């Protein structure tokens, strides 16, 4: 049934990673992603990998979950690393017409695959340990400086929150409308692609109509409670930076410095 679709990836828990300030988590995840790209050799990438694995362990989220998140992008990983297989210098191993596989190519392929996988894992830690509401809260706070460019940060965050809030409601509604139209003999399950799309019209129109109705109702309810945008609005859950956050920040900085140092000082000569 349609209700079974899992939404968001949040995995509730009480680990230290869960308890970190969401702003810090978002920021540090971005920093880490940048440094995964800066890591230029196996030693520095290895350091980032170990760092990511430790964070994964600390998050308390089962590893099967992480594996599931990689499975989704497995195709991209394979595709890019196979493409990279054919570029790069070094000793030629196989030659077939103008295509050649070299030691450098193999090195690149492995390197790119590891890099993408670590990247996915790093961002998964964020989405697994931060609820969507926390995430929008953090984004609102982090995007605040954009106000100088007249970007309505609060409004954007509010829209994201509302959208997330209504996804399950709309799914349930879709389910109901589908049942009602099926009861009137609508055939939603067979036929070619065109007839299937056409068959969705009796579902989509009522869904649109009720979404607009809900939007009006919600807007009315918000105005009745004197909502007038972000001006002068205070938070119910004020975010606080604690010692945990500072320590995590310092560790991340140390790892990043380590990546830069390894990049500069370690010369790798295998497979080249």
């Amino acid at each position, binding site marked *: 049934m349609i209700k079974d679709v899992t939404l968001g990836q949040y995995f509730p828990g009480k680990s230290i990673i869960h308890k970190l300030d969401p702003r810090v988590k978002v920021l540090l995840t971005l920093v880490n992603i940048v440094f995964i790209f800066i890591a230029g050799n196996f030693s520095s990438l290895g350091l980032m990998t170990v760092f990511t694995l430790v964070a994964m362990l600390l998050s308390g989220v089962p590893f099967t979950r992480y594996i599931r998140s990689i499975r989704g992008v497995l195709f991209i990983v394979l595709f890019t690393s196979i493409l990279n297989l054919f570029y790069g210098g070094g000793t030629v191993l196989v030659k077939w017409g103008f295509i050649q596989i070299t030691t450098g190519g193999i090195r690149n392929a492995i390197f790119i695959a590891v890099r993408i996988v670590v990247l996915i894992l790093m961002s998964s830690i964020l989405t697994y340990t931060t609820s969507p509401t926390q995430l929008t809260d953090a984004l609102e706070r982090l995007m605040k400086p954009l106000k100088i460019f007249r970007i309505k940060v609060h409004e954007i965050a509010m829209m994201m929150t509302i959208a997330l809030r209504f996804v399950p409601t709309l799914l349930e509604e879709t389910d109901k*409308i589908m*049942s*009602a*139209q*099926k*009861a*009137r*003999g*609508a055939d939603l399950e067979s036929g070619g692609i065109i007839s299937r799309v056409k068959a969705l*019209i009796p579902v989509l129109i009522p869904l649109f109509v009720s979404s607009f109705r809900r939007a009006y109702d919600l807007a009315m309810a918000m105005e009745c409670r004197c909502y007038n945008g972000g001006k002068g609005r205070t938070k119910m859950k004020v975010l606080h930076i604690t010692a945990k956050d500072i320590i995590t920040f310092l560790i991340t900085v140390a790892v990043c410095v380590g990546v830069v140092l390894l990049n500069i000082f370690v010369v790798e000569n295998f497979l080249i």
Partner: protein
Amino acid sequence: MNVIETKNLTYTYGAGTPFSKTAIEDVNIAIKKGEFIGLIGHTGSGKSTLIQQLNGLLRPTSGTVLLNGKDIWEKKKEIRKVRFQVGMVFQYPEYQLFEDTVIKDIGFGPRNMGLSQDEVNQRVMQVVDFVGLDHALLEKSPFDLSGGEKRRAAIAGVIAMDPDVLVLDEPTAGLDPQGRDHLLSQIKAYHQQRQNTVILVSHSMEDIARVADRVLVMNESKVFLFDETAKVFFHAKELEQIGLRVPQVTKIMMKLHENGYPVDPAVFTLDQAVKEILPLVQRGAAND
């Protein structure tokens, strides 16, 4: 002849997952052709799940549903035919309207049945009069109708398929008292005229008492009672224990009966109560 029969019908949501929940368990009911059944039960008692089994919107986890003696899931491909035979009006059916005119929307079911345009039109005209929709509304967009008109148009859309069994899930929810009375008497009239089977799901004992021949009471996924209306209301105490009320009128009549007045306690409409009490009052006046 049983038009609908269920045998050991069980349905579990999310079977095989940690979130599995049994919505109906071992339901055995038989409904004869032409009966008017009232289905009542608390929220979460399994009413909605049960009715969705009857037209094949949900497939039983175990057990069978027989329509005119045949298992509806015998041929999976033909489940749509079952849906034309067992018409289902969902709760708040006005939200399923989608066509650009009312007449087209009511004709959606019949068109899906593969009827010719003439036949579709004929059926639409028939049901429009039946539910009491103004002909002037037919060419309008269904979204321009009032709430009550929308509800009628949506019910007309199901009746237009001329089903053997009509299932209505809380058809009077959200209507004002007048609209409710009107709709109920129309459903009753429909039942009497077409002589087919109607299953009415409702929270209101009063509504059910007015129209149903037999009442099916569901409680915690199981059939609690399934008997003639009068007999069901005799179980007032048990009904109250599972959080259902008998009609207020019945309660008063039972109290009167308990206190020694010669009245029939199995009364569940106001008219019947008047008939019972009035002679008593007149006799009392004569004795004075």
